[in-house]
């Protein structure tokens, strides 16, 4: 069993007997040290999507499905195509890619984990940490190396924007936690 706060996009869980793939999981702190997790999920049998919210300590049975290490190849609207080491290609629906779409770029070498249900690729998980280059951000703030002052930065390739430390400059490579979309540190 896994608690709601341990789940992440790409996990498959059982809800009322139906396997559901989590497309997005958003953690928020509630009152009295409690927390809630808002999850967007899709039924693998019904195909229907739903937005839900759970207490962070709600428990779920995780369904372990076949997984393969793959690399991202290209986007063929509306499918993202991944390839395994034997050059087999697998298509994942754009909707099922979830937050991973923020970091998918042509030519990326990060190993992704593609999950299969009854032979069909149904979701993709990125490594917990990836490195991406900053395409644009406002000029660095001199003197602040604390990492506490943040500013937005746009990533090369996906164009995804996220808050980064004020000392980051255009062209810097940064480490990002893909589970939370949070900047971790400068990578170069």
């Amino acid at each position: 069993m896994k608690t709601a706060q341990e789940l992440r996009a790409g996990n498959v869980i059982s809800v009322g007997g139906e396997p559901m793939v989590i497309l997005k999981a958003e953690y928020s702190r509630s009152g009295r040290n409690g927390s809630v997790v808002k999850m967007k999920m899709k039924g693998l049998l019904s195909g229907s999507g739903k937005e839900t919210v759970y207490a962070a300590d709600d428990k779920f049975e995780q369904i372990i499905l076949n997984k393969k290490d793959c690399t991202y190849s290209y986007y063929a609207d509306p499918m993202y195509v991944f390839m395994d080491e034997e050059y087999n290609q697998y298509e994942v629906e754009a909707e099922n890619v979830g937050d991973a779409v923020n970091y998918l770029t042509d030519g990326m070498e990060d190993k992704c984990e593609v999950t299969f249900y009854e032979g069909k690729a149904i979701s993709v998980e990125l490594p917990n940490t990836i490195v991406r280059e900053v395409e644009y951000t406002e000029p660095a703030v001199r003197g602040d190396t604390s990492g506490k002052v943040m500013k937005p930065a746009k990533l090369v390739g996906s164009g995804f924007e996220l808050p980064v430390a004020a000392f980051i400059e255009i062209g810097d490579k940064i480490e990002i936690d893909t589970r939370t979309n949070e900047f971790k540190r400068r990578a170069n």
Partner: protein
Amino acid sequence: MEKDFPRSCDIFCAVVDNYGDIGVCWRLARQLANEYGLSVRLWVDDLHGFGKMLPELDVSLSQQTCRGVEIRWWDSSEKAIQRGFPHPQSLPRWEREASVDLVIGAFACKLPDSYIAAMVASEAKPVWLNLEYLSAEEWVESHHKLPSPHPQLPLTKYFFFPGFTPRTGGLLLERDLLQRRDAFQRDEDAQSRYWRSLHVPPRTANELRVSLFSYENEAIPELLRAWERGAQPVTCLLPEGRALPQVAAFFGLAGGRAGDVWQRGSLAVHVLPFVEQPEYDRLLWACDVNFVRGEDSCVRAQWAAKPFIWQIYPQQDGVHLDKLDALRARYVEGLPADAAPAVRELWQAWNGGTDVAAAWARFSARRKQLAEHGPAWAKRLSGNDLALNLLDFSRQVA
């Protein structure tokens, strides 16, 4: 055809600490029973704490009716037999109890498994809501009313978030509260009688009356010193509770109790008994400035429409400071630009910040503007009635 409102309701409350949980649940229970005519059972796991705000409650009884609400004891930890209270025979038989239209679990409290099983088994499944904590943060709007299908059972709970915007569940507000507040605040005789009932002398010229309801707070001595040394006489009304030892220590005393009066310099402190909710409302209405804590008294201070300072329930990692700032940001909308920073500075100083004396001086200088702002703020919030929203939503998802 539009469905009817639910007719019966179970509210489950697990008292964590203090009086916030039960305070909100008791208020909601009375409103649903007395204003909307529901048959309400309030399940409480700590009758001793509840008894502080409901004097006629008999804590030895596991079942009784007070003010239109059936109050039932339950053991949220399911260890009643070991604790021997009230006695094992009085433990609820949940399979017989789960036959209501609406079930509300307050503040994410876990319902007994057997009660949930009985809900699943019942022919007409009740609407099941989780009444969440109050927050002014933006994320609340996108979470409000979302379903939470049970991971294992064919049963869906819904998350219901109180809040300060129309896209949230709103705030608890009794039907005639604001009219009663206005009548009291216009009636000087009623206020004089009220002060006499507390054995507090009549107001003197230029005197400031402040209620002080707080958790332990390192800023208390500095604030009391500022009042003591200030030019303006300050009468501080202090309900018995967690702040009392610190205030007593300021006067060099080991402790205090209701009825004590302590005076030094410009400051007089009157220790009040812990009072019932309607009496606490009157205290908030009668004072010029209110220091409040947690969720329930914070909302009541906003209905009182007087300048207020909120001490938020402290959480790990300082996450409560974001919540404090979220309400502060909403509250100061519409305030003159020079008054808003005074609110921010004092709220921050009162919640772990520094230099509360200076922050108080700036806040106090803006008191007139804040006093004018209070009624407009309360009116703005009053259009979003939590109990009504909750019943309306229950009708929609039934």
